[in-house]
């Protein structure tokens, strides 16, 4: 048997051995055995010196080819084995993706806050300032400067928590109209502001009454503000908060601090206007009150009602939230049951 034949035999046999190796450790041992210093190829190359000189290059070339082939086979097998090992590992690592995700802490803004923020953002976008005033108010601002003198019958419409004869818990956010009108410098431009806040009424708490609730007051005063502007603004609020699939109806009303006064209704979202218990079978739901600022209010605040005029509106975030989400008891907003609070987390 020639050396070449020997090598050829090694090549045939050992390639099969390589294929048969079952793990990386044995493969490594085989690699040392075959390609190491004591391995058959090294041995064969060592025996090369016994060959005639003219056969040596050819033999050398062949030995190298065999070595490269074996080496290649070993590496290929190593890759295979590594892949097998990884696949086995991955199979072992399989998890139940249906197990619950890990809880994280996340709180929610109060639903009334969400509505107030939404209103604020809407009006900020239209160039309004947001101003807040005291909750403990003077009778003067809460009533007198809002055209409600001491004996005015409309005072009976709002039962008031008094602290003294002249100091009270504000019953409305309207006193901010008087406070801002007094301060505003009209030479610097129109007054456009909204004022959100807490208000108080001397009421017994029940599903539809709360001694504490919220209001957002708005006022725009300039040289040429019209009732049409008020109408457009009210429509915008209703559409922003309830969506524009609803119709809006304006009708005459009465507030001492506006003339003309209006109340705005939207289509009953419960029945779509057909009439149901929610809307008392009228198809409409009252959502806010507004009007053109009464000249007395302007004059009492030192604003010339011949030159300046505008509109004011007041709306109730509590009522909006009740209507929007179908909340049937206003007290829910102030009891802070976390099961209630966390229901209003949907964005958009």
């Amino acid at each position, binding site marked *: 048997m020639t050396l070449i034949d020997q090598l050829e035999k090694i090549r045939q046999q050992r390639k099969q051995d390589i294929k048969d190796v079952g793990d990386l450790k044995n493969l490594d041992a085989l690699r040392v055995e075959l390609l190491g210093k004591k391995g058959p190829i090294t041995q064969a190359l060592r025996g090369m010196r016994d060959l005639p000189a003219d056969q040596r290059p050819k033999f050398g070339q062949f030995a190298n080819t065999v070595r490269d082939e074996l080496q290649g086979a070993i590496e290929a097998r190593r890759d295979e084995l590594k892949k097998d090992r990884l696949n086995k590992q991955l199979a072992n690592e399989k998890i139940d993706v249906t197990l619950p995700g890990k*809880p*994280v*802490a996340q*709180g*929610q*803004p*109060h639903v*009334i806050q969400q509505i107030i*923020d939404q209103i604020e953002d809407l*009006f900020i976008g239209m160039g*309004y300032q947001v101003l807040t005033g*005291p*909750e*403990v108010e003077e009778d003067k601002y809460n009533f007198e400067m809002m055209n409600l003198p001491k*004996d005015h019958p409309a005072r009976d419409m709002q039962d008031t928590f*008094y*602290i*003294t004869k*002249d*100091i009270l*818990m504000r019953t409305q956010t309207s006193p901010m109209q008087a406070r801002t009108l007094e301060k505003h410098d009209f030479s610097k*431009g*129109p007054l*456009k502001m909204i004022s959100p806040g807490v208000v*108080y009424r001397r009421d*017994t708490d029940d599903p539809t009454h709360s*001694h*504490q609730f919220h209001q957002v007051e708005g006022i725009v005063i*300039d*040289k040429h*503000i*019209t*009732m*049409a*502007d008020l*109408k*457009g*603004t009210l*429509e*915008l609020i209703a559409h922003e908060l309830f969506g524009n699939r609803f119709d809006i109806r*304006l*009708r*005459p*009303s*009465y507030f001492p601090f506006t*003339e*003309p006064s*209006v109340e705005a209704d939207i289509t009953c979202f419960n029945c779509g206007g057909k009439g149901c218990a929610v809307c008392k079978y009228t198809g409409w739901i009252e959502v806010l009150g507004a009007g*053109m600022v*009464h*000249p007395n209010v302007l004059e009492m605040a030192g604003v010339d009602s011949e030159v300046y*005029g*505008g509109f004011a509106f007041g709306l109730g975030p509590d009522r909006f939230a009740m209507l929007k989400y179908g909340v049937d008891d206003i007290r829910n907003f*102030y*009891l*802070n*049951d*976390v*099961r209630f*609070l966390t229901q209003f987390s949907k964005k958009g």
Partner: protein
Amino acid sequence: MKISYSWLQEYLDLKASPKDLGEKIERSSVEVDSVTQPSDGLKKIVVGKIVSMEPHPDSDHLQVCQVDVGDEELSQIVCGAPNVAADKKVIVALPGSRIGGNVKIKRSKMRGVVSNGMICALDEIGFSKDVVPKEWADGIYFLQDDAKVGEPVFPYLGMDDYLIDVDVTPNRGDMLSVYGVARDLGAIYDQTPQLNHPQVEEVSTPAADKVSLDVDKDLAPIYTMRVVENVKIQPSPRWLQIKLWNAGMRPINNVVDVTNYILLKYGQPLHAFDYGKVSGSTIKARYAQKGEKLTTLNEEEHELNEKDIVIADDQKPIALAGVMGGLNSEIDDHTTTVAIESAVFTPTLIRKTAQRQNLHTDASQHFERGVDRGGVEEAADAAAEMMHELADGDVLKGIVTGSSYDVKDVIVKVTLSRVNHVLGTDLKLDQVADIFKRLGFGVQVDGETYTVSVPSTRWDIHIPADLLEEVARIYGYDKIPSTLPSGPTTVGALTEKQKLMRDSRHVLEALGLNQAISYALTTETKAGQFMMRESSETQLSWPMTADHTTLRMNLISGLLDDIAYNNARRVKDVALYEQGRVFYKDAADQVRPSEHEHIAGAVSGQLIVDPLKNAKNNAVDFYQLKGIVEKYLDNLAIKGDVEFVATDRYPEMHPGRTADITIHGHYIGFIGQVHPTVAEAYKINQTYVFELDLDALIDMPKDMDQFEPISKYPSITRDVALLVDKSVTNAQVLAQIQKRGGAYLKSVALFDIYDGKNLPSGKQSLAYTLTYQNPNATLTDDEVNHAFEKVQKTLTSELGAEIR
């Protein structure tokens, strides 16, 4: 007030259906609460004639009646009414009918005798007991003899009419009458209402011979009286009774009913006195005197106040003026001479009297909202004439006048350009003039100026803005265009303070707390708990309930109420924060409190509810809430070091688990565990809370975010474990390390606390990682070792630490 649709049709030619009319009134005048028919919900209720009746064999009060209900055969109906009688036309509810209260009537047997339906009393077919005439209160009702057998009863009782319930705003008192509504509808539909005016047939005897009046003009600017003699008291005719009961008034007798009818028709309250019961001939309108009492027609006795207004004869009060008459001068079956009062009382005085005596009547409500000063005499005339017609009375000559008032039209001027300027419309000169005319106002046009004369029927109109409202509503709010304010641009933005308040809420929500809004009015005890500073409390002068008497001076107590509400409903895991105001007074005699924005949190149970974790081990503790507060303050970027200083100064807090929070030495709030006895009082589980002065935080200087280059030189760390007395705090160790840490000490972090077994008692082991870095060069081990040794020495010498 319920306005009858058919009554309105007497004066107007209304094409609109009752429902559409209601909608029109709502869009143009005043709110409409409902449009209903008294027969709503009723069916198969017909006229029957009792042909014969015989006693029920097994009952001593039931009658077995044979009733003609228009069928070929008579219907047998058992009836127990005391007044049941043969030959009478009655109200029959047939089998399968529906009567008042949504009750279904079936064929039945009463003590063994078949009864095909029911013979009804008025209150059984939906009449309120308050409006059923007294003579029909205890039995069945007899219909008129010509009522057609078998026909529905509704037309005979006015129950097929439609009633429009208007909710009149305080300014539109003129709408509290049929004439007033007819006038307004006339304007809306551009029709002239056909209102009739009374012609009084008088006898020759002057009324002034019978009465003289002594009236304080400040109490009653107009006070008049008519006298009718020889009246015959009896029930009113059915048409009148129907008008009254459909308006919610009980028919009483022909004299009293006339006064109520006039009130409904004209909106002028009248009162009829039995002249025979009046002592002397002078009737006074005056303030009540001390100690005077009056029993009113509803049989309630009133102790009169010296500010109440009364009508009095020469001895005693005979009426609470403008509110209710006195029982002592009531019209009864024997009355023969009637004195009819038609007057205008000062609204505020009537309002106060009604409030003081807690007696609110139709009359007082009308006077409070005002009445037509030009219509006082006409109302008296109409009443007198009706008493002549319905009660055979003799109307004495003339009206006796105690006080009078020169009624003039109110003149208001407005220009067309003003109208269009304010309404945003493009109305023409004629259009606006036409609206004024439709309203019954006089109008003169000069150029573009309208001079409008407003009659006394619309006493709410005084200024141009009032006219603008009239134009807007009659033209139609629907037709006003929809625009947005034009003019100079303004900038809308939240202020710094408002932004920080919003950010505060967002940060705490991101950290897991839900926003709560609690009551600012609480009990005196709760208002004064968890106080961050001394303050007197602010109390309501007349609270509604004991739970809400005092303005809060802390937010925590409200949050604890919220937790109690949750805990009571087995919700154990509660994480809340609130941003709101507290109310401080520096001295008890300070009237108005100052208002301060605070922000507070309260956590009970688990902050992160992981069912796979043991709830007990996962419950919130001091350090978790502290982490939240630290992160919150970090987010606000307040300049200065935040320190937590142990304190036992809050009586409502755990003395060993509470810390004052200071920033740069300024106190801004506190954090800790609620004292167990306080938690017990609130009925809440273990709870951790914090409260911060948000105003102070907002005012503090803020760090500007600024980029700090990331060092390219590596950092080196060294760990040190110390055995120290338990009384040594983390803050003390940190302070020493920082003090002697050297120039390259970048940070120190506690990574282990151990106070368990294997340690000498009273000792704890604390372990820290110190990180060193030179931003400008690579640190050598030598440099670090040198610095680290210095720290270790300091800890040993200053804190008695044993380095392990």
